[in-house]
Structures are given as structure tokens and as C-alpha cells.
């Protein structure tokens, strides 16, 4: 398993596009944080929960969704370029390969989520201190945000293995956001339990209709279900050119 993880890290490190994704993502989080904190203290934008929202949303939603898209594209790309065959030659027991891929992306989600939060906090803290304000980034909020980045990374990996096509996997990950909005019009409060809907209560954003604990449990349940489906399909399917 360690060998597989090391090889996957070499894979991640040796493509320039991967570095670009990380740089752009961190740059966006930094920009959003700096832009938001510039307005701190004006127009009633001064409570800790209000000040925290741009930070948790940019990491817990933006970073999480981009990581899901990245994972889905990367895994489906293995099928597109035929590299999945080479990976299976090294790790013919498919469960191990899938666990290794999910672990890589979960760790990436955790590290990148933590880095983005650290960057945002690093930018926001001195700006808020100047205005004698605070966003009170507590441990539960940090944990919820990181849960979002890790869970969405794993969901992205699962979508890649389930759909095996980059356009389809991306369409499903991105399209679910739009689909949720449409479905939400018909199912009312139950929409809060859909994957993207869960981010609002999980990150304690305004408009949450369920608690953060329930949201966390639901997100873990959805992630487990999608992962289970990916396991079943990946184990059963032939890998053809």
C-alpha cells in the first residue's frame, strides 16, 4: 500500500497541470479572503460569523468542489489515456488500488484544505486585528471545513471510477449542483440533505436548516454510499482499451 501511495504521489508531482490547479486554487482563496476582509467592519459586516463566511465558503465549497472535479478528471483520465491498465499491472488486487487512490486524494483534500484555511487565516488575521475584529475560527469549524474537502475529494475519485469518462464525470460532479437546485424546489427542507446542500449547515453558513452534526453524518453517509458503488463497479468491470 505504501508503494502504491508513493507511486501516486510521484504521479501527482510529475504533471505540471496539477501544480497549476493547486496554485490557482490557493490564489483564489487568498484573493477572496483579501477582498472580503477589506470590507470588514463596514456596512454591518463585523460579526464573527459574517467575517468567517467568506473564508469557510471559499475553502469548504470552492476548494472542495474543485478538488472533486480534479479527482474525477484525474481518475477518469486514467481510463482515457489507458494508464489504468499500467496501474493494475502493479496492483492487480483492485480494492488496494482503489483504497490507495482514495487515500491519496483524501490526504490531498486534507492538506490543501488546511493550507487554504491557513492561508486565508494568515491573510485575514492581521487585517481584522487592525480593525479590532475577529472571525473566531474554532476547531469544530476547521474540522467541518476539512471534512468537506476530504469528502468531496473522495466523491470525485468515486465518480471517476464509476463513469470512467472525463466529460461524464465532470458533468455529474458539476451538474449535481444545478440538479440539486431544481430538485430542491420540489422537496423543500429535504434538499438540505443533498450533497451540496449539506455544505451550508456543515460550514455553519447563513440559511442552514439542519445542524452541523447531522450534516456531517449525512455527508459521510453519502460519501460511503458513492464509494461503495465505485468499489463494486471497479471490481466487476473489465479494463479494456
Amino acid at each position, binding site marked *: 500500500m505504501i508503494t502504491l501511495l508513493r507511486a501516486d504521489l510521484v504521479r501527482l508531482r510529475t504533471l505540471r497541470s496539477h501544480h497549476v490547479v493547486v496554485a490557482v486554487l490557493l490564489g483564489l482563496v487568498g484573493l477572496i479572503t483579501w477582498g472580503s476582509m477589506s470590507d470588514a467592519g463596514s456596512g454591518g459586516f463585523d460579526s464573527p460569523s459574517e467575517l468567517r463566511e467568506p473564508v469557510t465558503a471559499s475553502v469548504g465549497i470552492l476548494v472542495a468542489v474543485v478538488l472533486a472535479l480534479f479527482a474525477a478528471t484525474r481518475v477518469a*483520465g486514467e481510463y482515457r489515456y489507458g494508464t489504468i491498465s499500467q496501474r493494475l499491472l502493479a496492483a492487480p488486487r483492485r480494492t488496494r488500488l482503489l483504497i490507495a487512490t482514495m487515500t491519496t486524494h483524501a490526504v490531498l483534500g486534507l492538506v490543501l484544505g488546511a493550507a487554504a484555511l491557513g492561508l486565508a487565516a494568515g491573510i485575514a488575521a492581521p487585517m481584522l486585528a487592525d480593525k479590532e475584529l475577529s472571525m473566531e475560527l474554532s476547531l469544530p469549524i476547521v474540522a467541518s471545513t476539512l471534512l468537506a474537502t476530504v469528502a468531496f475529494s473522495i466523491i470525485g475519485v468515486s465518480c471517476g471510477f464509476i463513469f470512467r469518462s472525463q466529460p461524464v464525470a465532470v458533468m455529474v460532479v458539476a451538474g449535481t449542483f444545478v440538479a440539486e437546485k431544481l430538485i430542491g424546489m420540489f422537496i423543500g427542507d429535504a434538499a438540505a440533505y443533498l450533497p451540496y446542500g449539506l455544505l451550508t449547515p456543515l460550514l455553519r453558513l447563513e440559511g442552514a436548516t439542519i445542524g452541523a452534526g447531522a450534516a456531517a453524518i449525512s455527508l459521510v453517509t453519502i460519501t460511503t454510499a458513492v464509494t461503495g458503488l465505485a468499489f463494486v463497479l471497479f471490481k466487476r468491470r473489465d479494463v479494456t482499451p
Partner: protein
Amino acid sequence: MSAVIEVDDFSKDYADVRAVDHLSFTVESGTITGFLGPNGSGKTTTLRALLGLVEPTSGTVRIAGSRYRDLDDPLRHVGAMLESSAHPARTARNHLRVVATEARMPRTRVDEVLELVELTGSANRRVGTFSLGMHQRLGLATALISEPGILVLDEPANGLDPQGIRWLRDFLRSLADEGHTILLSSHVLAEVAQTVDHVVVIDHGRIVADEPLDLLMARNAGERVHVRSSDQSALRSYLQAEGAHVSEEAGALVVTGVGTDVIGRLAFDRHVVIYEMAAVRASLEDTFLELTTAAQSDPSDTYPSEAPS
């Protein structure tokens, strides 16, 4: 010699289509075996089943005595070259670094295999910019990185120019001389004829030949003699009376079953003047086409597969 690759009564169905039909053959240790057949005959499916990428519908496929997935450290036993195995945006060196890490080989091995396949100068180029020949060399480097004893190569000569084919031939021969066992597929017999010791020919998923190449050629590629003479119809009758098979092609008699010495003597004895006589050895492609066309026209006319053990 012992069998290191065993395909036993292997069949594979894709939905309603039978891609491989009760295929059985073995590959002996230290030999180069050509796995031949037209496009869509089931070669790639069989190789992928050997490598654990495709699950047999029935039958068994074993490599180094086990199913691929049951091998401890499979890359140390088997090196495989498949249609595509490298990300086009990754450099050749980085691609091999990934494979070396998976195979738990030192990084120095990357430079060794790059040198072995003569790609050192292009090591830092992206794979997407490679020519077909370079792709094939990189595929070989990928297969060889873990120093395996068994090589499974899917269409390694595909798209190579004559120099590339010669290079591949010499390269594979040197590997076989070192004791490697090589199973390589191709849809062009002539591409691999000077490389392989043994051939397994399949068509429509069924085996049509499994024997040493020399025997196959001797059995299927009998000499044909093209003859033009002063009296074609008389000569034809004389030859047929001698037991020869005679047909006509562009005004010339095409004779099989007897050699030029018999034809010459017969013509001399019967006072027929020979204007032209040429012995034509059937080409490899003729043999290959003959085998696969025969199987298409009569699906029952195939080699019997061994019963499953």
C-alpha cells in the same frame, strides 16, 4: 522446458458477442511465441485476461504458475507492453519513475532502461510528442523496468518502419538469448516471422494453428510453380496425371504438389516446350491469410483445444 504461460479452455463473452472461444495454448520458458490473428480476433482480450485486466467467462489463464492477481510482486515476474500506458503530458523519464516506484526499483533503473531502448536523448520530452516508434520503445522500457523474466507485448511492431522492426527483432532476440520468455501479439505475420520460434494463430477467437513457425511454414506454405509452355492444356493433363494440383492464373499454370524437376522432366519427355518456369514459395502473408480465411469459411476447421483440466 516448462510452460510459463498457460491458457486453458479460455472463453470471453462481451454481452452477446463471443470474443474468445475455448482457447488453449501454452508458452514454453525461454521462447519467443508469436500470438497472431487479424484485428478483432481476440488477441488483446486474451493478453488482457492473462494480465488480470479482463475476467474470463470460462476457463483459466495462468502466468508463472498462478493467476496474475495472485502473483506476489507481479511486476517482478511479468513485464507487459499494452496499447497505451503513459500519460501524454508526462515526460518519458517521469513516466518510468512512476513505474519504477510501483515496481520498487531504484531510480537508476530508469536511466538504464532508457539507454536500453535508445531513448536517453528524449527522456525529458513529453510522451505526447513522441512518434509511434518512440511510443513502442517507451512501452518496452516500461515492460523491462522491473527486470521480469516474462514479457507480454501487445502489438510491439505496430506502426514501426522497417528499421524499427529490425531493431525490435534484434532486441527481442537478445532478450530471448538471455532467457526471457516472450509472448508477443501481431496481426501481421511477416512483422514477427523472423523473431518468433513458435506461433499461435487465432481467428474469431478460436485457435487455427499452434506450432513452431518452421513447421507451420512447411505445412502450409508448399512450393508453387508458375509455368508457361507451348501447350498448356496438354501439360496440365500430364501434370494432373502425375498427381499435381494445377490451376491457371493470368495465362500461366500454377502447379502445386510437384517440383520444378518433375515438371521439367515431364515436359521434356512429352515434347512440350517450356517458355517460363518459376518456383514461388508462398509468402508468410499467404500462409497467414490461408489459415485465417480457412477458419472463416469453415469454423469447424480449427485445431482442437485441449479439454479443461
